[in-house]
Structure formats: C-alpha cells, structure tokens
C-alpha cells in the first residue's frame, strides 16, 4: 500500500428491526456492527489514513439522500456523515448515536445510494481518490427488490469498486470457495435459525459477491478482518545499490524493507500548569566534576574516554579520526556462497528483513539478477555478503537467500552475527542423560498433543503453498500487534472520555491472545494425559517469605534432611542474592530465626521454631565430637529466649523434653551435659505464666541426670575448639 493511495469508502449500515434482535444478555447484530465499524474507523484514524469515509444508514425513519430527492424511492436511507477523513466525531457518532429503528429498508437501494456517492466524489474535478469500496453491514433481514441488481453489479464492475459484506456467517451451500476466514472465538449467541427473508437475502448477496469478487466477513471475525483493512501504510522506498561479485560483475538492485517491527507514533511531552496553560518541557544534559561544588564543565573541556581494565583512556577526536576503522562506504558485496544449511535460521541478526529485486530501470541488470537468483536457488546456496547501508555506517555481515515466486524473483537479506556476537554457552546434555529420558508412553502423549493442536486446519483442496486459500490459524499476516490495538483503544477512550481512567483491555483483543478455542478444546484430552504421565512439581519461590511459601519449602525438604553444610544451598544462595530470609538456614540459624520470628506469632512462630529445632537436632547429631555443639547451644538459647518472649513456653518445653530423650538414647550425651552445665532448662511458670512447669520441676529437669563434676571440667578445651571452628564457619 503505497503512501499516495486514497480510497473512498462508503459504509452502509442496516439499522432495521432485524438488526436489533438478540436474546437477552447478548449483543444485537446492530451493536456488534457498530463495534466493528468503529474499530475499522479507529484503525483508519490511528494509521492517519488519507482514505475518506461516508456513513450511510438504511432503515432510518427519515430519508436524506440525493437519489431520493432526484428520483422516486430510496426511502428510509440517510447519508448520516458525508465523505470525509475519519475523525473522532465520526467514531463518537458510531459509538453513541446510532439508534435502531423499526423500519426496514432495501439493501439494494442502500448500495445504490453508496455507489452514487462514490461516483460523485471520484468523478469530481481534482479528485485524488485512487480506489473505492463499499462496506455493507447487515443481517439481510429486510425485504429487497431485485430489479436493480444488474445495474448495481455493472456499476460496481465499472467503477472497480470493492465490495465487502459484514454480516452473520454465510452458510456453505455448495459454494466451497466462500469459506469463512478462520474459525475464531464464537462470542456470538447460539445460532438462531435464519428467517426465510434472510436466507433469500443471503443467497442474493452471495451471488453478487461472486459476480463482483467481493469478500464476506462474519461479525465474529473482527481481528482478521481488521488486518485486511488497514495497517499503517509505509511508503515503499528503495535502497539502491550494486550487488558486486568480484570487481567487475555489478548488478544494480533495489532493496525494500520486507519485515520490520512497526513502532507506534512517538509520545510528546507536555507540562500542564494549571488550566489551559501548556508548555513544552526541554531537557538539558550537563556534565559536572565530582567536587563539592559539582562544577559544571563546558563542552570544549570534555573528552571521551573508554575503559581499559581499571583505567579510562581518553581518546581525542583526532586520534579517533586517525585510528578508527575506515568505513568501506555504501555497498553490497558478495564474499562467497555457502550451502543453505550453513546459515541457520536462529542466527538471523538485526531487526529487519530486506528483499532485493532487480533495478527495474536496467533490463540487462535484471537478466543478470534473474540468472544469479535462479542459479543460487538451483545450487541450493545462499550468498554471504557484507553490506554498508550508507557511506557512514558500519559494515554488516549478512546473507542473501533466493526467494522465487510466480510473480517475482528476489533475494531476501538477513544480517548475520560476527564472531563477537556469538555466545557459546554449554548446556547439559538432557537429550542423552538417562535421568531425563521420557518413556514411550510419555512420548506418545506428546505426540497426541501435537496432533490435537494442529494450527494448519484442513488442507485446501490440494492447493500448493498458495498463502491465501488455506485455513492456517494464527498467521502472522492476519495477526495485529495487540499493543497498537490497545493503544488505539486507550487513545480513543481518553479522547472521548477525558477524565476517566484507562479502560479494561478489549475482550476481543484478549481473546486474540488466547489459544484458539477449537485448539484448546481438542487438546484437552492430550493435556490431561500429559498431566497424568509426567511428574511436575512446582517449587515454591522463596521470594516473599510468607508463611505459606516457607511451609512449602519445609514440606519439600522435610523428607530428606541433608548434611547441614550444603543443605538447601540453592535456597541460601538465592537468599544471599536477594537479601531476604525465608527459612532457618544452616549457615546462620540463629540470626535467620531471629529475623523470621520478629513479626511472627501463633502458628507461624511455631513453624519457624520447628525449623530451628530441626537445625539443632541436625547440628548435634551430625557434629563430629563437639564440633557443632557451640552452635547448637546458641540455637537452643535463642529458641528459649524467643519462646519466652512470645509466651510460647509449651512448644519449647515439649521440644527440650524430647531432645533430652533423644540425646540419651544416642551417643550425644556430651551435648546434654553441656545443656546442664549451661543451665538451659524448661521454661517455668515463674518466667511465663502460661507454662505448666513449676520452677522446681524445671530445676529437677536438669538435676536428674546431672553429669559428674569432672566430666564438666573436660569441656572447656572442646569449647575453645568449637569457637575456632565457629569462626571459620
């Protein structure tokens, strides 16, 4: 679509009674039609299209059209908005001001009115229109007379006017070539039987569309329909250069951008000071010394420097000019040819695809180009080239891939990476490692998934890869960037409703980002099969430290306590990186615990206590000699202090009693002795009122098995060793 094209479009909208019928809770056809029309207009508006649009309503109580004034008939047809550029008012009108009526009008008449309007504007002096289009929006509920049919068809053919019909899906009665484009989300109410009048109308419309090669869309197919209508037109500007093979063979070529990410119109800044006072802000960048006054430095006193290790090396302009790479200028030079498979799809660099064709002004060059393209194609090679886009741009490495179609022969150009751009990371050999091998059954389930999620649809009658005639879903050519759709939605909403916040994302737009419903439905079984056959367990992210998250982690690790040194190494690594503590680790259990219980109480507190208790047991049991006793004791004392503070004496007392039992049955009596010597005992009711232990009992608790004095004396030596180990820890 070149920039100079300009289309005259007449939208004929049926507002008759049939359009306004819908079961409660569903959109009427009229509402849907208004949505579709406003989306079409919206795209015209936001793509800043030069096309002009005229809106004709038929079925209106009044009559306002030129034909009605000149001829008899053409009643109840209103030229609601004259031919003009799309503006916000027109969209607002469609969105808010169209009223259903209870009078039906003849759609043939409406199209005739439309053709008349088109005829008038396109033949007017100085008309810049290059094409014309009529969009008929109706569910064909009204009566029509066929006497004008031939005239209309002839007029459409003569004026080369395109005609589009938007209405309920047309039934396929033998006309296989009128497949609806792509089954999309059925947001429509359950299909209601068509009236005889509608069937009649449909038959007629199909005849006409066939006759004039028009297209039909159903209301449900808005998104693919829109892509048909408008994308932001970009002028086709050639990049001209000679394709050089060696010093002598030079073939003039034209390169066009084939694919490139479209960008939205850029945002401008405004400073609104009070009502109606708007200013344009201006950014100023300045450079300052790192001294107290932050002295500003003038442009002339600044030199650019590059880091070289810990130094920054200044490079003056002169040095830069003298020593920089000498740019080879604008060119497209072949370095050699290589087998197509040597250039991998995933190596394409850059953010655009160019297509090169022969320069149309040079027939000899075009013959040479054609010969080279075909030769490359037949030899199954691609050309490796270097390209300088302009005299001042850095040369890029790229490849030219022959691309031959019935209508044209071309070379596609992709940028390729330099050696420095490659990152040769090594990954685990998961396909070889027996641990990760799926069973035959599992593979079969994946096979089912692939079968059930085929997006190609049924093949169109043995056609080869003719792009247009198949039922492929999610074709890039039919998918609109949702960001633009969303932006337009917001822009329009803000323009029409100044003070409201942003609207919700349009449901149709949301749907277009979801799995196509047919695919979702057919894959259900295979998905369930996979769910049953593969064991997938979500590892709770240790990021927020909520009780729930921690609980998840505890459960996961509960079955397999590992050595304290490397237990949960990953979790603690992550913790260190993130600076948040989510559970009592093995490295600094005391500080972890203290941090965790700071704001915890009740069940949460007990959970953390359990974690610390587990650590204490681990430390004691796995201690070599008295190696970890000091650490375990610190934990135990911290547990006691916190339990006392939180008045959770019960938890602690139960644990200590339990620990005493365990220590006696294992060979870790030495730690019990340490507990006694340090006097860490049960929490008594004198300390905490909720305790059921008397202070006497708590004393007895230790004394019962107090170690002989001499054994206690042996302790200090070990303890100093502990300290040492602890410091190294």
């Amino acid at each position, binding site marked *: 679509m070149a920039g100079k094209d300009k289309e005259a479009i007449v939208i004929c909208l049926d507002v008759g009674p049939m359009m306004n019928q819908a079961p409660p809770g569903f959109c009427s056809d009229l509402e849907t039609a208004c949505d579709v029309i406003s989306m079409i207009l919206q795209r015209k508006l936001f793509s800043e299209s030069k096309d002009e649009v005229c809106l004709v309503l038929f079925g209106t109580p009044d009559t306002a059209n030129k034909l009605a004034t000149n001829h008899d008939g053409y009643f109840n047809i209103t030229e609601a908005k004259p031919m003009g550029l799309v503006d916000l008012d027109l969209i607002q009108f469609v969105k808010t001001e169209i009223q259903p009526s209870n009078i039906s009008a003849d759609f043939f008449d409406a199209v005739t009115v439309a053709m008349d309007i088109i005829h008038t504007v396109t033949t007017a002096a100085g008309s810049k229109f290059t094409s014309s289009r009529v969009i008929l929006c109706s569910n064909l509920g009204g009566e029509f007379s066929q006497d004008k049919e031939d005239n209309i068809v002839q007029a459409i053919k003569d004026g080369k006017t395109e005609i589009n019909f938007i209405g309920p899906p047309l039934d396929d009665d033998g006309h296989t070539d009128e497949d609806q484009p792509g089954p999309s989300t059925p947001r429509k109410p359950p299909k209601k039987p068509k009236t005889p009048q509608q069937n009649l109308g449909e038959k007629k419309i199909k005849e006409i569309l066939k006759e004039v090669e028009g297209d039909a869309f159903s209301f449900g197919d808005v998104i693919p329909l829109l892509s048909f209508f408008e994308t932001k037109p970009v002028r086709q500007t050639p990049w001209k250069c000679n394709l050089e093979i060696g010093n002598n063979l030079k073939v003039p070529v034209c390169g066009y951008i084939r*694919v490139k990410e*479209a960008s939205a119109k850029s945002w401008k*800044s405004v400073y*609104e000071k009070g009502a109606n006072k708007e200013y344009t*802000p201006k950014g100023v960048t300045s450079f300052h010394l790192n001294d107290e006054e932050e002295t500003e430095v003038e442009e002339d006193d600044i030199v650019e420097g590059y880091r*070289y290790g810990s130094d920054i090396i200044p490079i003056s302009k002169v040095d830069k000019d003298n020593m920089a790479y000498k740019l080879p200028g604008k060119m497209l030079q072949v370095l050699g040819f290589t087998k197509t498979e040597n250039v991998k799809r995933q190596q394409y660099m850059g953010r655009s695809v160019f297509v090169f064709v022969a320069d149309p002004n040079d027939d000899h060059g075009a013959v040479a180009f054609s010969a080279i393209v075909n030769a490359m194609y037949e030899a199954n090679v691609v050309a490796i080239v270097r390209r300088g886009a302009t005299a001042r741009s850095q040369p890029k490495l790229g490849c030219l891939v022959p691309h031959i179609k019935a209508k044209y022969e071309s070379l596609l150009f992709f940028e390729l990476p330099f050696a*420095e751009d490659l990152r040769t*990371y090594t990954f685990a050999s998961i396909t070889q490692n027996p641990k990760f091998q799926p069973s035959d059954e599992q593979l079969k389930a994946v096979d089912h998934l692939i079968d059930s999620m*085929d997006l190609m649809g049924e093949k169109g009658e043995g056609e080869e890869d003719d792009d247009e005639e198949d039922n492929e879903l999610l074709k890039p050519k039919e998918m609109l960037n949702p960001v633009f759709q969303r932006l337009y939605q917001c822009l329009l909403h803000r323009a029409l409703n100044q003070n409201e916040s942003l609207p919700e994302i349009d449901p149709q737009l949301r749907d277009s980002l979801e799995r196509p419903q047919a695919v979702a439905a057919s894959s259900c079984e295979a998905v369930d099969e996979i769910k049953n056959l593969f*064991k997938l367990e979500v590892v709770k992210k240790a990021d927020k430290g909520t009780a729930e998250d921690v609980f998840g982690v505890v459960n996961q690790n509960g079955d397999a306590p590992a050595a304290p040194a490397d237990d949960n190494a990953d979790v603690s690594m992550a913790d260190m990186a993130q600076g948040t503590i989510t559970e009592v680790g093995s490295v600094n259990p005391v500080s972890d615990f203290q941090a965790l219980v700071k704001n915890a109480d009740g069940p949460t507190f007990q959970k953390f206590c359990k974690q610390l208790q587990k650590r204490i047991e681990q430390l004691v049991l796995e201690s070599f000699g008295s190696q970890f006793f000091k650490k375990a004791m610190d934990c135990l004392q911290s547990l006691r202090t916190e339990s006392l503070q939180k008045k959770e004496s019960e938890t602690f007392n139960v644990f200590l009693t339990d620990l005493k039992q365990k220590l006696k049955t294992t060979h870790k009596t030495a730690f019990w002795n340490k507990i006694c010597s340090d006097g860490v005992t049960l929490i008594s009711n004198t300390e905490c009122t909720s305790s059921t232990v008397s202070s006497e009992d708590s004393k007895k608790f230790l004394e019962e098995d107090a170690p002989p004095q001499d054994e206690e004396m042996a302790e200090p030596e070990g303890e100093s060793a502990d300290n040492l180990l602890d410091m190294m820890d």
Partner: protein
Amino acid sequence: MSNWNFGDFGFADGAGDEDEDAEVGFSWKAAGRDSIIFLVDVTRPMFIKQETGESHFELCMKCAQSVLKNKIISSDRDLVGVIFFGTDKEKNSGNFKHIYTLQELDQPCAARILELESFTEDGTADFEQKYGHNSSFSLSDALWACSNMFSQSPHNLASKRVLLFTCNDNPHSNDPALQRQARTKAKDLHEVNIDIELLHLTTPGKEFNFSEFYQDIVFNTDEDEASVLPDASEKLEELMTRVRAKDNKKRTMGRIGFELGEGLQLGVAIYNLIGEQKKPYPTKLYKRTNEPLKRNRKTFCEDTGELLMQTDIKKYQVYGGRKIVFEQEEVADIKKFGDSGLKLMGFKPRTALKPYLHVRPAQFIFPDETSIQGSTTLFNALLKKCLARDVVAICRFIPRRNSPPRFVALLAQDEELDDQSIQISPPGFHVIFLPFADDIRKLQYPEAPRATPDQIDKAKTFIKKLNFPFSSENFENPVLQTHYRTLEALALDKDLPDAVVDHTEPPQIDKRVGGPIQEFMDMVFPQGYVPGAKPPPKRKAESKAGGAAKKPAKDGGNVDMEDMARQGKLAKLTVPVLKEFCQSKGLSTGGKKNDLVEEIKSFFGV
C-alpha cells in the same frame, strides 16, 4: 558490565548434577571472578638467551602481557597477579625469602602491562640490581605465597589458578626435605581448589623430566594421564594468542513458565545465544585531568524557566486534530498485558515458518528445574517429538512481567557434538520471534525480465566455485577489533595499533573465477554496459546478445514518444527514459519530471 536483571538469579541450571553446567549457571555475582597468578622462576638459567634470541624469562613476561591484554577486553573484572621466585630480594606478605611479589592479585590495567613490557623491551640488564638472583629459595614458600595472595583477595574468587613457569625439572635436587615440603604444600593448595599448571620451558638438547619432581606438584585430575607430560608449548601458544573478544558469562535472561494447556506448566530459562556486541560506550572525561564527569539531566520549562520534575510531565499524541494526554504511568500501563510466560497455541509444520518471518534475533530456552521439578523430562519429550515430526510450536511470549506480548515459534534443536565430544549446539528450543501483520510491509514488485536456462547455468559455474563453508566464527567485527587495538595502542603508548585483518573484505574473487564471471557478463550484458546507467538507445543489436525479454513500456527506444505525448501518457514513463529522449532531441534535460513532460509535449506540439 551492566548488572541488570539479576534479580531472580538462583542456582544452576536444570540438570544440577552436571558439574560443568552447575558452575556456569551462576550469575557472576554468585560465581565471583577468575584469578590467575603467574609464578615465575627467575633463577639465572631462565635468563640465558635461547636460539630464538630471547630468554625463557622474556617469553614468560610476554605470555603474562598477552594474558593481561586479553583479560582487559574479555573480562576486566578478573584478577591477575605475578610472583617471582629465586630473587635475591624479597617482597611478599609472608616474608618468605627469595620470593618477590611483582604484582598483587588485581584487575588488569595499563600500568601493569607496561611494567611487564619493560622486562622485554628494556632488556633484563638491571634485573640483577632490582631483584637479584638467588637459587636458595623454597618452592614450598613460593606456593605458600600464592595461596596467601588468593586468600587475601577481598573478592569472591570463582577459580584460582597458578601458572608455574620454570626450566628446572628438579629444583632442590640436593634437599629432599625442601622437595617434600613443596609436595605437601602443593597438596594443600590442591585441597583448597587452587590449580597448579606447569609451563615448563625446554632448552634444546635437554629434556624436561616431568616425572623427576613436578608430577607430584601438578595434580592431574585425569588419573590416566597422570604421568604424561602435558605439552607446554601448546599451552604457551594458547596463552600467547591474542583474542580480543568480550567473554560473556552464561546467564539467563529470566525464568518463566511454559504453559502447554490448562493447568499444565513446565519451567524454562531464557538465554541469548547471539547478541550484538556493540562498541563500548564512552565515558565523558574532563580534558585537563582526565577525571570522569558526572552526567546530570534536568528538564526545564522553556517559557517559564521552571525546573520540572518527571512527575510534572505528561505525554500526548495528536490524532484527528486533538491532543490526547496521558500520565506517564498510564503510557507504561498501556503496554501491560499480564504476567510473563510462554503459552502454547499449537503446532505448525516447520515449513510454515517462512524465512522472512524475522523481526529480532532469536533467544533460546532450556528447562528450569528450579521452578518446576520434572520440567526437563517433559521438555525433552517435547523436543524429541518436535524434531521427529518436524514441527514448530507456536506460542505467545511475554518475556517479562508487563512487557508486551509477541508470538514466537519454538524451533527444536538437537544436541550436536564435535569429534572431541565438545558441544557445538546445545539441546533446546530457539525462540523465533514472529512479526505481526503491522510489521509485514505490503510490497509491489515490478515486473522484470527473466534469465534463460543458459544464463542460469553460466551463473552456476562461478557460484559453485565460490562455495565455502560459512561460519560466523571466522568473521570478526572489524569495527570492534579496530577499536580494541586503538584503545590498546593508546593505553600502552604505542605509536601504531596492531594491524586488523578485515575478514569482511571481499576475497580475491576475480583471481579465482574471473573467467567464468567474464563469460557470464558477456552473455547477459551488452558491450560497454554500465550497471545502473540508462538503457542505451540502440537495442536491436543487444537483444541478440542479451537474449532478454524486453519490457516495451520501460524501453525508451521502442516507445512511440509522440503517440504517448498525444495520449497524455508521458507521465507514465520513467525519468531516465524521458531524459534520454530529451537528450536525443537536444531538448533541455533540467528540472523535474513534470518539466520533462512539458518539454516533450511542446516538442510534439501537443
């Protein structure tokens, strides 16, 4: 080095039991820096000039320089230190005799390289006076000094290597006690993961006997090769090779869920296997002192002179003549479509992935066990089946929370190993970004003449001869390489930077296939053909030579100018055609197309 998006870096990759994988899977923060100490024997034998005209010691210094220079470009956060043993003087933290720390373990910088250079350039005459020689050192002390140097580094070290340079295969040959100490010390170092690599320097006619002593110092992890002397010359060569390329540490761009269906999700991590390596961005310096400057960006209101805060500024676009204004947060919100993740839409045959469907460089996904256990097996099954059935998975992809969605095709890749079992291509899916309809330009292609089979065959003759096995690895970016060399030359005070071999220069094509190319040109081009020039006026003679189908509309010679002028169709001709006609009739060729049309019209009196 930028340190963005390290937020959620956890642990290693999926297959945690692969050591290698676990190691490289860390972010650099967790992994720390690589460190190397050059431990150089400076006893007198090292200073004997060899046949090459250079002493072993000089070779060592060159080697160290080369490593420093490479490090500065590849990863300038890595640490390098240099220790001499066998000096007369001493300088080290442990006060060991005859051990001299030339350079502490630190980041490479120009001054250090220059210091090393002084040994090779200014000769070693004053070595005696500055450091002296003394062979009564203890190798054990030398190793200990290395160990101290590593442990005193304030940085987190990922790897610790000692490169030991010597030409003496049996130090302390008269002192078994010292030998024993050295062996014990080496073992200690090994236990704290310090690798010792021996770079033995041989003198012609004198074997270096590895088994004599050093096999107990160098711990070879590979048991079978324990007694085999590793080839030092190869290692030396490797160290001496100048490689100027940034070393990108393996790190993920994010970990996301990959939803195959309702309630069925696996974890994947995203990587970039290619990415444009740009020239480093310059820093602004104060000319007089070369100190770095702080950048300050302020926004003013030009009319009132007020200093504005970011929050004062709103954004707008103009459509249909109206200014539509948004808050800045709203502008960001418009792009938000929900949480990150890959969502499977369905499958298409690989052939549906047309070559021109490309909008940005691909990414790569690999299973991530840290988010969902069991992901690898399912991923593997998917990979195998996609490969076997030659299909691509079409997905919706939101790389980060609130970044706009795109559709992608997942292209399966099987693991590929070379003869030495080194991975050439990893197993996983390439994420190919697909364009939207908005991104695909609708182009009109002009009709063009086609070549004949003969001409095509002729073209094939030279195309086939110009075949080469392409690999990006063989093409360094000349702009980047020139920049590195320029920087190096300026930093190290060189008059001229090292020469760059520009691999993007077209090779000598004419030498190889000049003949066939000429034959081809004779076949398709008329004599005196100038590419891109206007079609020559005489056509009949050439059409035999060219054999091309001609397009009359574009062909000035075949067009009846007068007829066209009378029908008012001159504007349909191209400017070159019109110009040429004007030239042939001696009319003015100046001005725009309209002027030419008018000129011709008046010529025919239309």
